[in-house]
């Protein structure tokens, strides 16, 4: 390892034993509690209402006494006060800041992100990019959605690592896929950071142009993709099709969750230096053990800018049991989908990710777009709408899909083929029955 690389290489925190991590978390959370209680009206009121004195939180288990809140609470408070800053932001006037927006799937809110936040989060995220192979002297493609907190962190880590960066014109909308292809072909980046749906839009545009994806991505050693869950087979297929060294998936949310894959690709290591994650029972709110699926609740550990303390992300996730083959001790998690996308079919709770895993068993269907249709009333069958594969006997494939869904998810399925899913459904995996029927008419 060269001197510069040695200076940047991640420290040993990702190998700390569990007890040391727990001690670290408790210390950080107690500090944070004191801070928010003293400084931030939003939390002072919430803690007072819940009759929680920050000094009484003496174990990580005590944290469960603090009620969770969700995006709806945030949006309600913004509307009630008529302002973006409603009391969960630490605002230090001397520290320059930017405002970013969260994405609009549940409604948009605002994040106040000062330079100190950028420095701590960017330096933390550097570890993930390092795991994925980013090194000094490389060229990295970054998209530039200046509205997104990831861009704020990426700009910091790019400076720290000392890589050149290239940015395509436009944004993540599929219509900009051509710009991404041009930029990758022309600038020949070694490393690409991208939104997963854009990667699929690039593949579609390659097909339209008659270009081989592996030729476009010839210079690329690694891709770090965020924005949608990727199944193991989907990742392997993408690696083959793009001809890149590896693809690493990152998951997170603007409110503070960061979890990234290592080279083992067995779940996402939670970046415990910046956030604390709990998985709780959706009904009772009680903490769930590793291996059980529940609501993802996060607590940011950085006392700068917007602070989220026991924030219910409304995602469904699991902490994966056991140790990772890579030897890192940071716990691993999987996030499957938004809770709003969960369907109950014949007593089974499933999300589109579960369906995707089944579909990916069939090589013809890997990465092909699909959607599940949600009925207004109780559902006793899964209705699946799927883009036709390029080859294969459709009837045969339909039967194989039905068998797989029956065997793995214990549901019966009705399935329809479409030449192509409507543009407005791209990236949308659950569609309402009324929209589906409307589209068929």
């Amino acid at each position, binding site marked *: 390892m060269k001197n510069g690389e040695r200076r940047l290489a991640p420290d040993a925190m990702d190998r700390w034993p569990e007890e040391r991590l727990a001690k670290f978390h408790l210390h950080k959370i107690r500090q944070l509690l004191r801070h928010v209680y003293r400084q931030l009206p939003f939390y002072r009121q919430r803690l007072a209402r819940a009759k929680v004195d920050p000094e009484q939180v003496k174990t990580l288990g005590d944290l469960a006494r603090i009620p969770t809140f969700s995006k709806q609470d945030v949006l309600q408070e913004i509307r009630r006060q008529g302002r973006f800053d409603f009391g969960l932001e630490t605002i230090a006037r001397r520290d320059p800041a930017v405002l970013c927006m969260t994405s609009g799937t549940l409604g948009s809110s605002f994040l106040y992100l000062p330079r100190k936040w950028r420095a701590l989060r960017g330096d933390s995220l550097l570890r993930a990019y390092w795991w994925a192979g980013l090194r000094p002297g490389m060229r990295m493609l970054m998209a530039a959605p200046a509205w997104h907190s990831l861009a704020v962190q990426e700009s910091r880590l790019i400076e720290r690592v000392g890589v050149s960066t290239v940015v395509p*014109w436009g944004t993540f909308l599929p219509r900009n896929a051509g710009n991404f292809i041009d930029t990758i072909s022309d*600038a020949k980046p070694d490393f690409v950071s991208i939104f997963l749906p854009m990667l699929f839009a690039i593949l579609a545009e390659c097909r339209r142009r008659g270009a081989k994806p592996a030729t476009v991505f010839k210079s690329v050693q690694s891709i770090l993709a965020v924005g949608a869950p990727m199944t193991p087979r989907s990742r392997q297929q993408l690696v083959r099709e793009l001809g890149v060294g590896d693809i690493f998936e990152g998951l997170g949310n603007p409110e503070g969750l960061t979890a990234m894959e290592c080279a083992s690709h067995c779940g996402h290591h939670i970046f415990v230096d910046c956030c604390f994650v709990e998985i709780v029972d959706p009904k009772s709110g009680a903490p769930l053990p590793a291996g059980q699926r529940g609501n993802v609740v996060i607590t940011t550990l950085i006392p700068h800018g917007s602070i989220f303390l026991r924030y219910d992300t409304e995602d469904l996730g699991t902490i994966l049991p056991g140790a990772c083959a890579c030897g890192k001790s940071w716990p691993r998690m999987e996030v499957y989908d938004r809770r709003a996308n969960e369907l109950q079919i014949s007593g089974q709770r499933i999300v589109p990710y579960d369906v995707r895993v089944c579909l990916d068993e069939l090589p013809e269907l890997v990465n092909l777009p699909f959607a599940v249709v949600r009925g207004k009333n109780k559902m006793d069958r899964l209705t699946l709408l799927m883009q036709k594969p390029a080859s294969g006997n459709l009837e045969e494939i339909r039967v194989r899909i039905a068998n797989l869904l029956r065997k793995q998810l214990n549901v019966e399925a009705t399935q329809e083929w479409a030449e192509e899913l409507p543009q407005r459904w791209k990236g949308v995996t659950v569609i309402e029955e009324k929209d589906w029927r409307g589209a068929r008419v």
Partner: protein
Amino acid sequence: MNRIQRLLQRAAKASLYRKKFAGLKPRALRDLRSFSATIPPTRLEELAAETLKSAASLSPRLCAGRGPRAIFQLEYDTQPALYLALDRADLRRYVEVLKFCWSLVGLRKGDRVAIFDYGTSPLSYLAASSFTPYLDRGAADLLGCLPICNDGVANMSPRAVEILRYVRPRVFFIRHDCLHALAMEIERQGLRLADYTQALVAAENESLLSDAERSSFEKRLGVPIYRLLRIDAAMFLAMECPRCRMLHTRRDSYFVETLAEGNDAAENPLVITNWFARNSPTVRYLSQVRGSLKPSGCPRGPKDLRIAV
């Protein structure tokens, strides 16, 4: 050596200009008059054609630079695509021009400012050091403002309105092609825009809102609309002055000429020479924007370079 000679010497390191200036003696060019008379303008099509020829390099204007760079794909419909490479020093000087534009439109310490444009637009990437690698200080950092950006996509107008409602920026920068959608959304929600912002600034690359369009939107929206001229290939920015209603820019950053077309037109294409760009020198770039140069003397910027469009 004067700055013309320094610019030409630097530019000659790039393949585009090396060919263009072959046989030229930079030392013979002692003033702007001889510079204009001797150096042929560079057209967009020429940049694209030379990019195609210089397959090994990302841009035919690229000079050897120090340290890593931020490279931006430019907003032009050329084939091949065009790129701009900037290092820390380029970014530092470019941002001074954006700061100048922000100051002219009245932004000052403590203000909030919204930018409804893509992250690859200089209006966004020069706004704050947090948005862009190697940008030491953005316009917001220099002036003490709080910026917020969102992609300038017309169907994201509801987000633009949320920014207006809850951030209440003093000035709202917006792409021309989003003005109509914003006006529709404001009307749909029954809002009075003046309750949320003091002015809009409309901008797009190598294009300006016409006077007729501007007054129609001003009537519809009830706030003043100023225009900002972006010529991204030349790293050029000029802001419409709220007082004299002409475009102002920094005299120490650019040399601006008009290219007479021999038909006595009142307005001719603007030709831009950039004094600060080191990695991607711009020498007499012929823009697609027409205007005429006016004498300095506006009280808002007595020494500024002024352009009527």
